């Protein structure tokens, strides 16, 4: 469903690449966690799938299509096949729950009757039955994120990208959100979720792809947030680096 072939992304010349020759395949219907420290390249990975950014080298395939070959006027079509959820929900504050979800259908020209039929269904899936008329500020964080998820999946995309969807939520609410994402995944949607939340990753036991400095350093099925296999040489490398820095500092003093 999503395939990266030696993808490198450089934002600024001379800077460290945000993604460094990443090769990865995510199959249809998979649930994948993308973990790693801030700046490890998780968001860049998601942006490349959406063609928000262009890879500096290598190819990104989404649903069998090389996104580099998609012309700009067909990018909207690509994005209709991908739902996105963010940490900050990104709801429209002056629209109620129903209108927020319906908005995603209106802008791609769905008919009123289909909207009226589909939106309540989706709201039921995310557990917001009966809250159609609420405004976003009247909802809890967890409920707002559910609205955002409903909006992301209302057009039935094949892929759902979630960029730290539980980052603003407490652990119990987060688990509720994970239940929703799991349900969506059970219905056949491929889910890629970037996260820092170790509890969730450990609880879910799904595929984990760990990024560090733009490189994939771990790709395990049914894994935990931190690797069970100790990474040999990690501490030595750190020591070497600091030693080098020390030498450089001394050189500067001389």
């Amino acid at each position: 469903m999503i395939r990266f072939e030696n993808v490198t992304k450089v934002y600024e010349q001379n800077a460290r690449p945000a993604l460094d020759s990443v090769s990865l395949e995510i199959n249809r219907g998979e649930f994948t966690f993308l973990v790693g420290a801030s700046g490890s390249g998780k968001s860049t990975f998601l942006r490349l799938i959406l063609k928000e950014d262009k890879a500096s080298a290598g190819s990104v395939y989404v649903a069998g299509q090389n996104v580099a070959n998609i012309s700009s006027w067909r990018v909207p079509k690509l994005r209709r096949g991908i739902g996105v959820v963010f940490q900050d929900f990104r709801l429209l504050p002056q629209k109620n729950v129903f209108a927020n979800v319906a908005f995603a259908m209106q802008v791609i020209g769905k008919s009123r009757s289909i909207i009226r039929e589909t939106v309540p269904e989706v709201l039921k899936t995310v557990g917001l039955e009966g809250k159609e008329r609420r405004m976003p500020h009247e909802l809890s964080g967890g409920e707002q994120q559910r609205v955002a998820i409903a909006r992301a999946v209302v057009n039935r995309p094949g892929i759902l990208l979630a960029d730290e969807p539980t980052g603003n939520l407490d652990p119990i609410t987060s688990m509720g959100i994970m239940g929703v994402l799991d349900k969506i995944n059970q219905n056949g949607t491929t889910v890629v979720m970037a996260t820092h939340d170790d509890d969730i990753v450990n609880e879910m036991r799904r595929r984990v792809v760990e990024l560090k400095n733009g490189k994939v350093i771990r790709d395990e099925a049914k894994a935990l947030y931190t690797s069970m296999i100790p990474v040999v040489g990690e501490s030595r490398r750190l020591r070497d680096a600091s030693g080098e820095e020390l030498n450089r500092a001394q050189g500067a003093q001389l």
Partner: protein
Amino acid sequence: MRLLFILGEIGGGLRRNLSMVISVVLVTFVSLTFVGAAGMLQMQINQMKGYWYDKVQVAVFLCNDGSTAVGCASGSATKEQQDNLQAMLESPAIKPYINDFQFESQAEAYTHFKEQFSNSPIVDSVSEDQLPASFRINMKNPEKYEIISETFSSQPGVETVSDQRQVLERIFSWMNGASVAAIGVAAVMIFCAVLLITTTIRLSAFSRRRETGIMRLVGASKTVIQLPFILEGVIAAVVGALLASVTLWLMAHFWLNGDLSKQFLNTPFISSTQVLVIAPVLIALGAGLAGISSLLTLRRYLKV
């Protein structure tokens, strides 16, 4: 559905940026009024040309007692000189260029003078023999005035050859100058309007970046995202153009065809219906300018 949606977006955008929209309306209104005024002046010039050029005459003034011109050294023009000039006018060299001519004697000139200045005290201080007799010539083509001028001005008994058209030309060149000035003001105002539209669209795009961001993510097409912004600018400009058209029409109806036509009975003024020809031009101009400037702005400030 999508049309309704876009209309809704436009309505929302116009409401949210009301003060900016009003300023766009006013600036396009003023600038297009000047454009239209320039157009009206040109129409007026054409109208007057068509009307007057048929009526203007070339006048060959004969010498009278007080004449100081070289050809008048022998005093007032004699009957022979007058007959000679008449013969020349009827000669095959000149006849093809003129429609007809009349002789205006000093007595007739005095009568016309009294009519023209009936309310002025100057009439009392002018006597019949102070006014020159003249041949009034209607040209087939008024542009060929030079032929008459060259042929007659050196003839004995002729004081001067005058072309009434020259007086008109002076008026027309003044009106042309005015319309150039109007175009100049219009150009500056249009420049302001374009900048203002650009700023308005930028603000509008900025205040709605949340919506457009979401639209982009869920795969709305470029048209659906950009059209509301472009139409906002276009609608504001068209409203301005309509106001300008109405103003020009009112001007033509109540000022040109009202007050002015009563004051200048002999002047043909353009009618208010003729102004309606300008209106579609103004509307197209306003819409085009707004459309292009908003499109260019969106290219820079609204990522799709």
